[in-house]
């Protein structure tokens, strides 16, 4: 397995270089270093001299990908691409174009994102799996039909509606929790109740239906029938046998997104003023802050690759037949 992990990690290197090149090209197709300088310098009294100064100070006065004026390897190294990319592979994200340390910002902002995303994921899983098991338990009855209809209704509602409706009902009308905000430590709990609740409720429709489909496939299997024939109750057969055997597809969905939980949720964090990473990339794109954009895209790619690797490894844990080689 170690060999497999090393091989996968090595595969990741060209992948990350490719992602980095793609981000670089896409960003600079839309924005030139001059545009970036003007964005950072503001709108009033911006002279050409000021633009040139900014570019020189920030290292954007070099050619983008190829420096024909240099010799040897410096033709590649004395470029914006090289100078701005090498540090990424050492996880040194550098300084943003507005002058802040990106690594420090990410460290500070990932915890609130995680504080929202992790309970949302865990409670959501619990609720969705429970709802799905209940629907399977009462399959072919009016309860199942009602559950499916409810799920379809829940799926059909925009997530923005859940947020605004939730804030209006629970925060404004019932006045049970703050409408938005955040605090450190345990004080964060009262701010997280509403966004977590909204996140869970808005995910029930699709989540419960997905798990129901998985469980239905399993309950028709011979081993479940055998379990019932042995006298096992429906509840026991569901929890002891069906749930365990449905773990692989559940893990596929869950483990792959675990690392990405750090990246936050744009809309939820924005509406609830949670100081996470959700809007970090979007804000940077709007401010034409290339340093942050490349760092966040790179980090997202690393986390996604890590998620896929973890998924593969988790297969071996839940299904002894799977071997990584």
């Amino acid at each position, binding site marked *: 397995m170690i060999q497999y992990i090393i091989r996968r990690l090595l595969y990741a290197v060209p992948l990350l270089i490719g992602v980095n090149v793609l981000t670089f090209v896409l960003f600079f197709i*839309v*924005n*030139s270093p001059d*545009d970036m300088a*003007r*964005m*950072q*310098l*503001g709108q*009033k*009294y911006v*002279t*050409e*001299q*000021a633009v040139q*100064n*900014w570019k020189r*100070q920030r290292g954007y006065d070099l050619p983008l990908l190829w420096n024909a004026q240099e010799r040897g390897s410096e033709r590649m190294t004395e470029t914006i691409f090289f100078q701005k990319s090498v540090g990424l592979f050492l996880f040194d994200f550098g*300084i943003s174009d*507005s*002058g*802040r*340390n990106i*690594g*420090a*910002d990410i460290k500070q*902002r990932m915890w609130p994102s995680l504080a929202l995303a992790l309970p949302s994921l865990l409670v959501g899983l619990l609720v969705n799996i429970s709802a799905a098991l*209940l629907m399977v*338990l*009462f399959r072919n*009855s009016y*309860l199942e039909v009602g559950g499916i209809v409810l799920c379809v209704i829940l799926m059909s509602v925009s997530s923005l509606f859940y947020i*605004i409706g939730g*804030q209006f009902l629970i*925060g*404004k*009308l*019932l*006045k*049970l*929790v*703050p*409408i*938005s*905000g*955040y605090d450190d430590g345990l004080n964060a*709990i*009262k701010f997280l*109740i509403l966004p977590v609740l909204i996140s869970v409720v808005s995910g029930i429709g699709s989540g419960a239906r997905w798990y129901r489909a998985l469980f239905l496939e399993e309950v028709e299997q011979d081993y479940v029938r055998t379990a019932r024939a042995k006298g096992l*109750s*429906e509840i026991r057969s569901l929890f002891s046998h069906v749930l365990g055997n449905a773990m692989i597809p559940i893990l596929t969905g869950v483990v792959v997104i675990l690392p990405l939980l750090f990246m936050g949720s744009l809309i939820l964090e*924005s*509406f609830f*003023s949670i*100081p*996470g990473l959700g*809007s970090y990339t979007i*804000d940077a794109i709007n*401010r*034409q802050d290339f340093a942050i954009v490349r760092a966040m895209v790179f980090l997202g790619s690393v986390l996604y690759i890590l998620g896929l690797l973890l998924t593969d490894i988790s297969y071996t844990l839940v299904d002894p037949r799977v071997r990584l080689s």
Partner: protein
Amino acid sequence: MSKLSSQLICLLGLVLSGCSDQALNNPYPESWANASILYTSFAERPKHLDPAVSYSANEYALIGQIYEPPYQYHYLKRPYTLVPLTAVHMPQLQYLDAQGGELAGDAAVEQIAFTDYVIDIQQGMHYQPHPALARGSDGDFLYHRLMEEQLEDISRLADFTRTGTREVLAEDYVYQIKRLADPRNHSPIAELMKEHIVGLADLAEQLGRQQNADLRKIAIAGVTAQGRYRYRIRVKGKYPQFQYWLAMPFFAPMPWEADVFYAQKGLQEKNISLDWYPLGSGPYMLTENNPNRRMMLVRNPNFHAEYYPTEGEPEDRQRGLLDDAGRRLPFIDKVVYVLEKETIPYWNKFLQGYYDASGIASDSFDQAIQFTGEGGVQLTPAMREKGIRLQTAVTSSIFYMGFNMLDPVVGGASERARKLRQAIAIAVDYEEYISIFMNGRGVAAQGLLPPGIYGSVEGKEGINPYVYNWQNGRMQRKAIAEAKKLLAAAGYPEGIDPATGEALILYLDTTATGPDGRANLNWYRKQFAKLGIQLVIRSTDYNRFQQKMRSGNAQIFTWGWNADYPDPENLFFLLYGPNAKVAHGGENAVNYQNAQFDRLFEKMRNMDNGPERWRIIQQMQEIVRHDAPWLFGFHPKSFSLHHSWYGNLKPNLMANNSLKYSKIDVRQRNARRAQWNQPVFWPLLVLLALFVLALVPAINAYRRRSRETIV
């Protein structure tokens, strides 16, 4: 069961509120309940808090309370009047000829080669407590040579255990002016000030050559400290507007210790920099700076004595704005800025009393404001019932439609092009625009000058006679028939271009996108269609738009300007020939050139206010109204709401340091919050009951199925 549930919910409620009687939805710590705190918000994190760099309204809202330039705008007096802040008196001006000889105060402008601004600052002012100024018992600075192990426990400025202070000296003002020239700082006014302050350009050049130079050791010819409390700035020629710059944070004092302290690499890596942790002498200091969540200003214990104004406008006394006359400032202990990106939660929290003031977003406008029969505005009954108050003020900004004067169709000084522009100026009905797109929050512009700026005229004498008539005691936009006559005279009868025989096609360059932008642009198309002109929209991003402006490739565009100071020079320079964007990279985006206008501008900008200057300003207004390089759009009107417990508020669009005058009635706020935020539990109990009821048939169904299976 129901009783138990109710108890559980109450228990949960108590846990959520920290086992207190505080409202469950209160987003603030209980310990803040009885403190004199102002709660406000910010939607976008400020980019810079360094006074040499910062230049936008959201940044000034913070640093205006921390840094103190030598002058400020009087809080209550109108028109806007400069008064000393840290200076002892207004600057003493000394005019000099080219040889450095002193000239009399009434010397002709042509004779004046330099002007010396001599400024005396108050003695005994001190900086806020700050680790950069902390010294040990041996007198050495404690934190100017930080070791790695010292930095291990530091993640924010507050982690430094020791702080210090020192007196504000004249050399600190000199030091800050040098910082403006330092290329490392990218000050937005560096290039502008190089044209005015003697020696600044040379200093910038020198600093460009010397990396990491110590600014204390490099002299600047035109700026010198003359003792501990006096400094002199020498500007080129006569530049009366320079006094307004001296009221902006760019010219606030900066201790050299700040630069030495923040330059340490370990601090920069932790985002501890002067750009994020200011060091000033003003009424407040920034003690918490998390631009992703919350920023907090706390009263500066070292703030020098400053008192609430004792005079204002005649009606200020009736409004209670002079009740605190002569009392020591500031009144509020702490200001909490909370990040609120979305307007809906912000508005709802304002209505719950958790923000003390609010703007009015378009989606809550109807909930807050209603129009009276006379076209005025007032609060809705629901707002009045809560004791909320409304303040409005016309801003010193202008949004305009510009015609590129280099364009062969709409530009140039020809009679044909001028008539075409005038016809369009009549057709584009900005009163309608203000009504549809701005909920009435604006005033149609009659020229370059917003109301309140010297030279602006109200009433019949102040209208743009090429676009409006004065009828029945009010201005009336000219009929579209008059515009069509002008259009025909311009050679486009009914909007037909004789060269093609079809409708004249004009192009509007804009950055507007999205549904709101589409509605806006459709409206512009309709305005031009009134004349039979087809308007083609060229939407683009802001980068490309700026590029087009720089190269002169746009034909018609919309843009705006917010005055830096209340002087007509800061608006007329937008049409001054040598400021043309294409030729000189200046702010004259329409590339307007008019020799007479330029001559008048050069004369006007160096004059003191008086009848002669007034006359020239009116002449200049007449020239640009006649030539119509701009279609004068509108001056936005700011609407703000505040609760009844928030006092001493008077709109002052020039001052950025007005927080020190505000006061909060904490007892009233607490009483209102408690009244407005009683939690409602019964729907939860109903929900719980419904859930229990739903379980009964489910359990029955399960039992039945189990029995069937067994059978």
